């Protein structure tokens, strides 16, 4: 009998790391040693009895080591239950689903990443792949904004990116504190600090819905063509495979046509942003 597309496979949580008071990073054993995902794709994650939700794959395919990573913010039933897990637990997964970032189109280009908050989770997958294949890309710039210093994800990697000379990484927080001597202000305050070649730049952004409008203004203001801007969007999803209707953006399905969209292609969709 064929297996239902809705039935998850049970996989082992190898490790759980607390990134911030609200986010944890889950390392999960890949079923056949390899998940085979593209950066930007997502998994449907289940805890039996609690429910299911889409979560981006946060690790890079280039660093799989037989496992993959999910960065999860505690916001509701499923994510609360995930935060209560201990390593060794079994959770249900199906996927990877969706259209990821078109990495082929990015090779040879300068890349500008502009993640806000938890938006770094899906982008980190791509960033690390780019770093691992550093030679095939032009300049790499990362502008990352978080609510406050405590909310910064992947601090070790941020350090690493900051230290590299082949990556320009700027970080800002909306509200600083005594531990923070970096930039204070929303993510858009970082844009004046960078110099890019807009014709050759591909921009990638992901963050809370209200962020897009402002970041897009900056990107377009810098002269980056609409067709070179990619966004990863969030919608409610119950199936992940274009059936349940929840994630529809007009005639598009965020789960199948996205979650990564090209700005030029979706700017005509008023429900998109």
């Amino acid at each position, binding site marked *: 009998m064929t297996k239902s597309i809705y039935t998850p496979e049970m996989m082992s949580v190898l490790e759980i790391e607390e990134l911030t008071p609200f986010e944890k990073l889950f390392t999960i054993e890949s079923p056949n040693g390899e998940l085979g995902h593209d950066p930007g794709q997502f998994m449907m994650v289940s805890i039996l*009895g*609690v*429910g299911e939700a889409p979560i981006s794959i946060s690790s890079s395919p280039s660093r799989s080591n037989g496992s993959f990573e999910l960065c999860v913010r505690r916001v*509701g*039933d499923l994510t*609360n*239950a995930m935060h*209560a897990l201990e390593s060794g637990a079994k959770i249900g997964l199906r996927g990877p689903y969706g259209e990821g970032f078109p990495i082929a189109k990015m090779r040879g280009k300068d890349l500008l990443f502009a993640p806000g908050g938890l938006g770094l989770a899906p982008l980190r997958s791509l960033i690390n792949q780019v770093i691992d294949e550093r030679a095939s890309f032009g300049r790499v710039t990362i502008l990352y904004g978080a609510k406050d210093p405590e909310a910064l994800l992947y601090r070790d990697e941020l350090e690493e990116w900051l230290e590299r000379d082949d990556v320009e990484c700027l970080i800002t927080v909306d509200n600083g504190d005594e531990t923070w001597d970096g930039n204070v202000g929303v993510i858009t305050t970082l844009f004046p600090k960078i110099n890019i070649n807009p014709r050759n730049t591909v921009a990638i952004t992901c963050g809370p819905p209200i962020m897009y409008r402002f970041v897009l203004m900056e990107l377009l203001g810098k002269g980056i063509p609409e067709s070179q801007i990619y966004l990863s969007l969030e919608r409610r999803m119950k199936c992940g495979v274009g059936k349940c209707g929840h994630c529809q953006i007009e005639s598009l399905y965020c789960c199948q046509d996205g979650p990564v969209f090209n700005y030029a292609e979706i700017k005509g969709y008023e429900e998109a942003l």
Partner: protein
Amino acid sequence: MTKENTKVKVAFFDFASCEGCQLTIVDALQTHLSLLDVVEIVQFREAMTEKGEDYLIAFVEGSCNRKSDEERLFKIREQAALVVALGACAHTGGVNALKNIQPSLQETREYVYGDKADWYEVYPTRPISAVIDVDAFIPGCPIDRGEFVKVVKNVLLGKRPGIPDYPVCVECKLKENVCLLLEGKPCLGPISRAGCGAICPTYGDGCEGCRGIIPHPNENAMKDVLDEAGLTLNEIMARFTMYNAYQEDQIETAEKTI
């Protein structure tokens, strides 16, 4: 998951109410006797004599109808990790709150107790959330057994209680009931909170809104529809207030009339 020694301790309390919700819980045992395998009831005055004070979840039935009852609520809040308003009286004030919209509370009191009215303490009816913080509610007059069991399970699983925010019409349609409004009979289904299985329309009587109103109801459209069904303005207002008379800003006015 829940072993014998880890049963969650729960307690039931009642304030001004008909105790029908507690009775519904007693009835829930007919079909869900295994409830007792996961919770330990340490207090339930309507059904048992034993009395324990170390409960984690307090289910509170009834509304607060007099100042002197507030103290008991404060104590419950202090002890319980989770306070659940049980039923319409606790959740919205229920029918008890109808007295709040009488022209004068003092007159209403005298109507019932005559010249001895002052012997009996009373103040405008409040849902318990107007007195203490409430973590969850189980709506309905009375509550629905199945929903009570569901909420208990959800809470034990660490989930939201799972009370729907959508209207009764959804459940009513799924049951393929002949729509009462379309037959010219009054029904508050389009703006009342579902979860009851649309029991009233299913039994031929329009929804009275005992489970409260959904968030952001289109009240104007509802009035138009009831008007269309032949209700007078008086009757329309009566439908809206039957279980939903309590309004915070009316308390002060009502208090002045006593």
